Every structure is written in C-alpha cells, then in structure tokens.
C-alpha cells in the first residue's frame, strides 16, 4: 500500500539523532534500518512505513525533551502504545519520530477506597485489572487485545470490549488524564472527581488518536467485580432469528454485560482453533453474559432462554461453571487470530449500525462477498450494533488488497447509510480517511481541523491521520459518485 504524504524538506537525520541522544540513552533511540523495521506498522499490517527514528523514553522528562525537539525542528511525532491498533493510527511517518510509550508501564497509585488507579500510558489493559483484583475491583473495558494493548492506546482510540454494552467504553471509565501538548504545556484534566471545571477535555482527548496531545498519565475508574456471572450460548439456523433475539433481549429491559454474535465462518474458525464447544453447523450463535446476584441471574436467564426459544434457537447452553464460561468466551476472544489461521490475511472492518438493521446489512455483506469472491467471517458486538466483518484475502495475490479495500469501503458506507458510523471502536487512523468524507460534510471536517489547531497549530502530532483534508475528500468524492448516482439506491434512506 503506497501512502501519499505531503512532500517534506529533507531532514538531517544524523543531527536529529545527536540531539535526541543528549536527552535519551543510546538504547532508547533507534535509527538503523533493521531496528526500525519492527515498528513499520501497527495491527493494520497492510500499511507499512519506517519512521526516521523510534524513541523509547521511560520518563516524563524524556518525553518532554522529545516533544520540544519535535516542536523546535518541526518534525512530526507519532505516538505508539503497543501497536495493536487496527486503523493505522500508529503507522509511522517517513520524516517523523515514532514515540513509543510502552516503557512507561508503572502503576503509580491504587486507591481502593476511592476506587481509582493512576497509571502510566504504557500499562497493558489487563495489567490494571490484575493489579487491583485483590481488592475485588477491576477495570471494565476489555478489548479482545487486552493482554497486549496499552491503556494510553485505549484512551487515544476510546476502545471498547465485549462488556461495553453494560459498562461503557473507555470514555465512561476514566476520570483523569495528564497530557503533554506539543507547545510544552502540561494539562491536568480531571482526577478522582466525577467532573472538572471548564470544557470537557476528558471526553475530547478520548478517541483523539494522538492528534491533540500525548497522554502520559491516566486515572481510571475501578468497579466492584460482579457477584456472579452466567454465560448463555444460543445457536440459530437463520441469521435473522439471532438478530431479532438481540433486539428482544434489550427490548425486555435486560442489559446483558455482553451480547456477541458469530456467524458460521467465524464459528468454524474459532472451533477449529480453540475447541470452545460451539455448534459447527449453526448459521449464527449468540453469546450472552449476564451478571448480578444469584436470584437476579436466575430470573434473567429464564427470560433470555424464553426469548431465544421464541426466536427459534436450535440449541441453548448455559455454562455450568466458571471454566465452561471461560471456554465459551475463549472462542469469541480468539476469533480474530482463529480467522488468521484459515486465511493468509484478513481485513477487519468496524462499522456500527442501529440494531434493527442487522439482518439487512449482513445480507448485503454476504451478497458483496459473493460478488467480490472474497469470503467474510462475521464476529461482533451485537448488543451495540458494532460489526466486525473480517474479509479474508491473500495479500500476495496481485490486486486482491485493492478489491478488499473497495469491498470494505462499501460496507462502511452502507453503515453510514443505515444511520450508523464508519468506526465503532478501532478509530479512523490512516485507513478510513476516505470514509470520513462520507460520514461528515465539509463544515464538520473544518471544525475538526479547527479543534486540532487549538492544540497543535503546527500540525505536528500524528499529521494526516483521523481527519481528511477537504482536498482529499473533493478528490475522493469525484472518484466516487459515478455520474451523480447515489450508492445503494435500493435501500431506505433517512
């Protein structure tokens, strides 16, 4: 994948390295080709680019020094946590510094009485819950990548997980941030309180994809572990029955902790990999987790079982114990790598749609899958309507990636057309810039650029990502709407 970038003046790389070495030890400044290679992409490996240098600071002072240099020398700076992002957000820039925050992994403070933890950005998501488990507490957002991804990356992407349905996204589960701006200021946003004075910068920073500032400290909210958990699996012969069961559960006033959907391709891939005990022939399964007290769970289980029956479930399985629950979840959580085993490459989409449009959107995806001759596995957060179609392909086949991108682009545009969005949790990054032109008009995009200017008027932090230029949208639009015809003429419009 070729990436277009504005031409930049040739840089004196040696000079920059020397300047960086005044503030960082030699092992924290990588600049030889073979050292840079491991950092050339994030979780979206279709896009690759080596940076000028990689910096691996382990203190605030070092980060400040790097940012000062970036500002003085006007060199772009791209932040990176664990590099598990799926939209190319942490993709390096050829003439830029890659600021890797993974070494900042101290848990600075655990306050069980106020139910908060203050951590550095490089702390892995799961490490927080592990560190506070002995207090009976945990950090709720649980992206499937939680053993690897960093909390800093989670904030930058506003990441979700299977338990978001009940417990919210990252934005609902953090209380404070310390942010360094490119002009050298330290912003202390929030803390251990439930609100703070001035504009809601906590919300604005969450999901800002490294464009507004570098997040150097996070105060997260901790929740008490639920008393009990039950996981119910239901298998369906028809996808529309599974989709309608999802709406019925929510409509019955039950908010499950998680409600996940897998289609046959995903079921088979997961089953072959993890042996979770999924019915291999089902068209779809739903995994429903409920939590609460013993009698409450029993009540909800009965209600949910009834809803599954009414929607013609062929099989309903209640996990008998904790290890069976874990086994049922293991298949879902490993679905991406499981699909990775059956195909040389896969491309993960991330649109969100209103729940009641699930069936028609899935059908359209199936139709396109046939048309493009690219298989698709669907595994997603059904309760939130957040789809993750995985398009299977082989990057070594000439032209295949281009077809995947076209197919994927169509799926995202379909999401927008049914009243949804192009990204539910993976971010825009480098990947969905064109679809941003579909989601937003020029006034909104200009407003986003003005927000960016309010923090970074020199456009040094992760430039070119997340928000497309109006120029790019004009070009994309010209390519896109052929002869003034709107896409999806057969679909109902808002």
């Amino acid at each position: 994948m070729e990436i277009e970038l504005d031409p930049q003046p040739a840089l004196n790389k040696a000079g920059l390295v020397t300047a960086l070495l005044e503030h960082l030890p030699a092992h924290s400044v990588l600049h030889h080709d073979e050292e840079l290679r491991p950092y050339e992409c994030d979780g979206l490996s279709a896009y690759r680019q080596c940076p000028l240098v990689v910096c691996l600071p382990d203190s605030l002072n070092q980060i400040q020094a790097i940012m000062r240099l970036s500002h003085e020398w006007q060199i772009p700076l791209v932040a990176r946590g664990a590099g598990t992002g799926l939209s190319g957000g942490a993709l390096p820039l050829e003439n830029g510094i890659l600021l890797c925050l993974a070494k900042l992994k101290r848990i600075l403070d655990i306050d069980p009485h106020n139910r908060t933890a203050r951590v550095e950005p490089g702390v892995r998501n799961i490490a927080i819950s592990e560190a506070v488990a002995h207090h009976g507490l945990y950090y709720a957002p649980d992206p499937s990548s939680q053993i690897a991804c960093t909390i800093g990356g989670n904030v930058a992407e506003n990441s979700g997980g299977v338990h978001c349905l009940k417990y919210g996204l990252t934005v609902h589960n953090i209380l404070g941030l310390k942010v360094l701006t490119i002009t050298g200021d330290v912003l202390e946003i929030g803390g251990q309180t439930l609100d703070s004075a001035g504009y809601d910068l906590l919300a604005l920073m969450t999901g800002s994809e490294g464009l507004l500032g570098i997040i150097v400290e996070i105060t997260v909210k901790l929740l008490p572990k639920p008393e009990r958990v039950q996981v119910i699996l239901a298998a369906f012969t028809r996808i529309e029955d599974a989709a309608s069961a999802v709406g019925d559960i929510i409509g019955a006033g039950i908010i499950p902790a998680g409600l996940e959907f897998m289609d046959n391709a995903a079921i088979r891939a997961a089953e072959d990999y993890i042996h979770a005990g999924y019915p291999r022939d089902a068209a779809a399964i739903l995994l429903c987790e409920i939590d609460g007290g013993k009698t409450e769970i029993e009540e909800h289980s009965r209600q949910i079982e009834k809803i599954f029956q009414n929607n013609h479930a062929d099989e309903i399985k209640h996990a008998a114990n904790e290890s069976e629950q874990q086994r049922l979840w293991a298949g879902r959580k490993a679905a991406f790598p499981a699909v990775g085993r059956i195909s040389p490459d896969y491309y993960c989409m991330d649109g969100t749609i209103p729940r009641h449009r699930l069936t028609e959107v899935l059908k359209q995806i199936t139709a396109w899958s046939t048309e493009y001759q690219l298989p698709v596995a669907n595994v997603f957060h059904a309760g939130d309507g957040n789809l993750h179609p995985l398009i299977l392909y082989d990057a070594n086949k000439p032209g295949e990636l281009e077809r995947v991108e076209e197919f994927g682009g169509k799926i995202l545009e379909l999401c927008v057309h049914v009243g949804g969005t192009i990204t539910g949790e993976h971010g825009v990054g480098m990947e969905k810039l064109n679809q941003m032109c579909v989601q937003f008009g020029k006034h909104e995009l200009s407003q986003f650029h003005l927000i960016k200017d309010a923090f970074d008027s020199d456009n040094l932090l992760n430039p070119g990502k997340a928000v497309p230029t109006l120029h790019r949208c004009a070009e994309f639009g010209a390519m896109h709407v052929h002869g003034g015809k709107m896409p999806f003429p057969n679909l109902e419009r808002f």
Partner: protein
Amino acid sequence: MSDHSHTLQHQVIDAIQEHTQLCITGGGSKAFYGRPSAGTPLSVTAHHGIINYEPTELILTARCGTGLSEIQDILADQGQMLPFEPPHFGSNATLGGAVACGLSGPRRPYTGAVRDYVLGIRCINGKGEILSFGGEVVKNVAGFDASRLMVGALGTLGVILDISLKILPHPRQEITLTYELAAENAINTVNQWAATALPLSASSHDGQQLYLRLSGTPSALKAARTHLGGEVLPDAERYWKDLREHQHVFFKHEEPLWRLSLPPATPPLPISGDCLYEWNGSQRWLRTALQANIIRETVARRGGHATLFRGGDREGTIFHPLTPAMKTINKNLKLAFDPHSIFNPGRLYSGL
C-alpha cells in the same frame, strides 16, 4: 413540534454580520447557573419536539426546546428513563438546557452523567454553520468527540439544536434505606459498600442520616436488604426528587450555595458551614458565607473543585479557576467554535 433550525441559523448569521452577541435561552429554569451573560436573547424554545424514539434501540433524539418532563413522560410510558436523572429546577426545563448545563442527579455515580449518554449533537457554530456530530449509535469514534465537548459548555461553543441520547430501562423496583450515622462514618460506610457488588443507585447524607437507594429486580433488592439492614424510608421517591430539585430544606437558606466536587472518600472538610453529601461523597453542597478563595484552596488541596452554585457574587468567578495551560486550551477551543465570540459571552468564565 417544529424544526426551527434555519430560523435560528439566520439569527446567528445576522448576529455575526451585525457584530452583536447572543444570549441563548431555553426555558430559563437554569438562568441562575453560571455568570450572567451579555447579549441579545436568542430563544430556542420554539425548536421543539421528539424527532426519533426507538425503545428497543434505547435511543431518543429530540430538539433542544423539548421539555424535560415531556421527554420523561414518554420514556416512562415505555418503562424507560433518562439515566442521568437530571435536575429540572423548574417546570420550564428543556433538554437543551439540561445538556448545556451538564448537571446530573442522584444516579450519577452509579449510572453515569449527562455527557455519558449524549451520542450525538446537531448544532450551529459561531460561523453560522449547522454541524452534526456523533449520531444515534452507542459506539462511534469517527472524528473528535465534539458532542460531549458541548455538554456543560453552557452554550459558549454553539447553539445546540438536536440531541441524541442513549436511554435505559427503568429499574423494576427501588427502595431507600436510612441509617443514623455521623458524616465521616457515613462516607466510609457508603464507599465500602460502593466497592462491592450492590445495586446502589443513590446516596446522601444530611448531617444526621445516611440515605441509600437501591434499584434493580425485586430479588436483587431483597438479597441486598438482608445484607444492608437499615430502615426503609417511606415516600422515598419524593425524598430524592426534593434533593435533586433543591427543594429539600437544606437548600432553603439565604447563604451562598457551593457545589464541591471531590474524590468520594475525602473526609468531611475543615470548613465552616452546613454540608449535604451526595454521590458517595463526591458531590457536596456547602452553605456558607466563607470567602471563595478559602473554599477553593481547601477543596483544591484535596484534588477537587468548587462552583459557586447559587447566590454570592454572580459577576465574580463562578467555576473553579483554570490553570494557565488549561485556560489557553479552553480559550483556543472557544475560538475554534465561536471565532467572533458571539455565544453567551462570559457565562462560563469572564473572557470565554
């Protein structure tokens, strides 16, 4: 039920051209909140009506001038509710005002704040452009979160036209338990309980008694009650409503009323005046004639911030002063949305 977006847009464009400032007004129930703002009144109440309500999607979109009570009645018919239990402070309260003020009620620490449930906002910025951010789906990370930025901005970033909210089913049952406890003990107790899996949905302490509301299925409440003891409060719904609406006797006094936001487990502050605790201790109401700087320093030392909620010097600083760095960013953001500074000048901070 009518869409006045374009009328309002023209009024904004006129104001830009005539270099006049606008004071955005909804029902006026929260006119006391913040600093008095200069400018010609721009009434938004005619922009009224529910645009979309889908109970099974748990989504509602309404125009800013729609009455809060109207919305709550329609939700109640379907067994649903606004999860952030917003204070009305008057029968004329509108949704737009509730969102612009960003105030949440007793359920806040357990279920979330206004901003947590705002999914999308359509607004007019200070260039007279109609912009649409977010949408009607719960998970959406496309573009900066401009919708949530508008919550609590007191109209200084633009005219909020339409708001999409996530809503929740109303709990099947609620009960309130009371305990005779001194403040310090109450704060400790309630924070210990909040750290265990109990169906808490509100707490308060009035100096003598701790009040604890539980919400959930009848069986969950029964189980929790055995564990928690306490006395059942009759007419509890009334109690929480009075508290939320500042109709409780605590609020019927002349002294300035401060709202303190603190880490919940902070012990009672060494500060003179009467204090009422909510949100596990995270929100405290203080009635005192004490000087602003003493209050602010005391609260800031404990990681909190203080708002002069009612009374006192309304022309002075109402919200907690910002650090220079935060001031710069707030000012830059204001100008990013409202380059001619026409919306609600001075309402949030002088000069913003």
